[in-house]
């Protein structure tokens, strides 16, 4: 089911030490709820991203549980404090066991 899944992340290239930056993430995913039926009346099995996490230099920034009511192509926007130069690591967990990852470095200006 995991076709056409593509994570996207937008993080500023640099920030001042201690600055709160805005991070935007988007992953293209069907987010099949498990509530719908196909044309023959059979239930289409649930297939969603069930968890999203963001870590900065090994420290957790945000950990989100996603539920079936969340619509297709889930988008998150959140703020994070940047105490030092480092790397943001993003992870999406799919119902089918797949894990999608992306990472963005950030420098201190």
């Amino acid at each position, binding site marked *: 089911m995991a076709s056409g899944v593509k994570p996207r992340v*937008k993080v500023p290239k640099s920030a001042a030490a201690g600055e709160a930056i805005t991070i935007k993430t*988007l992953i*293209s995913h069907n987010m099949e709820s498990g509530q719908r039926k196909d044309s023959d009346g059979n239930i289409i099995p649930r297939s969603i991203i069930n968890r999203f996490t963001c870590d900065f230099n090994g420290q957790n920034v945000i950990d989100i549980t996603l539920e079936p009511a969340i*619509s297709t*192509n889930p*988008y998150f926007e959140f703020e994070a404090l940047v105490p030092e130069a480092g790397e943001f690591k993003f992870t999406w967990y799919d119902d089918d066991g797949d894990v999608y990852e992306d990472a963005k470095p950030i420098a201190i200006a």
Partner: protein
Amino acid sequence: MKNTMLRTAVAAAALLSAPAFADEDANLVINDEIEITVRAAAPAHMENVDEIFSGWVFRSDETQAMQVDDFDNPGMIWVEAGAETFASVDGSEGKSCASCHNSPEDLAGVKAVYPKWNEAAGEVRTIQMQVNDCRENRMGAEPWKIDSGDMLNMEALLASVSRGVPVNVAIDGPVQSTWEQGKEIYYTRFGQLELSCANCHEDNYGNMIRADHLSQGQINGFPTYRLKNAKLNGVQGRFKGCVRDTRAEPFSAGSPEFIALELYVASRGNGLSVEGPSVRN
């Protein structure tokens, strides 16, 4: 004929008390670089309207904001998909779009002049018909259905590289009779509700029709990502929705009637920028 200034002022005053706020004075700049003309003087052929507005003007602040940055515009997901298709080989000739056109950016400005006359075929062509002509005759590939997923992705890609270019559809010469036919359809009342396009989009833009804030029905922003169905929507599919809502039997996408109507409605937006893929509700 009508005092548009007065009507706009009244509509704005009514909006202050309405729940669906829209910033009608806002300007649209995408990614801090592409300036979009969202209001312009009406083209000379429009007799009843002085100023034309992109549908973006009529949307709520939140919806407007989604179009300001490509990352926030969900329609760009399908533009990316279109770019992949652009570069992939299909059909018996072993060609992709890129084999002839190099990059999508080489086709910047193309979307702005469609629908237009094709001399060799002797017909008015929408950009979707032209894409299919390439697929069939140059690539030896199966044509896509009008407003199908692949087709809308490609149209969205072609629109995205033309953003900021003013719509400039020709209405004279060989296309004139088709244009007249489109105009005829625009002003013809259809369905049990006996509504023409003009009843809503010319006489009542800016007003509410139940929960919807009526726009001028401009198509410069197509293909459009609609929040209601979370996917790209084509012009002729949208026409179908409108005609259906008048409780009439709609023409089908790709029919001569809708090709004529697309030409006419596109010409009503001459002067606005190409904006697709836009975000609407």
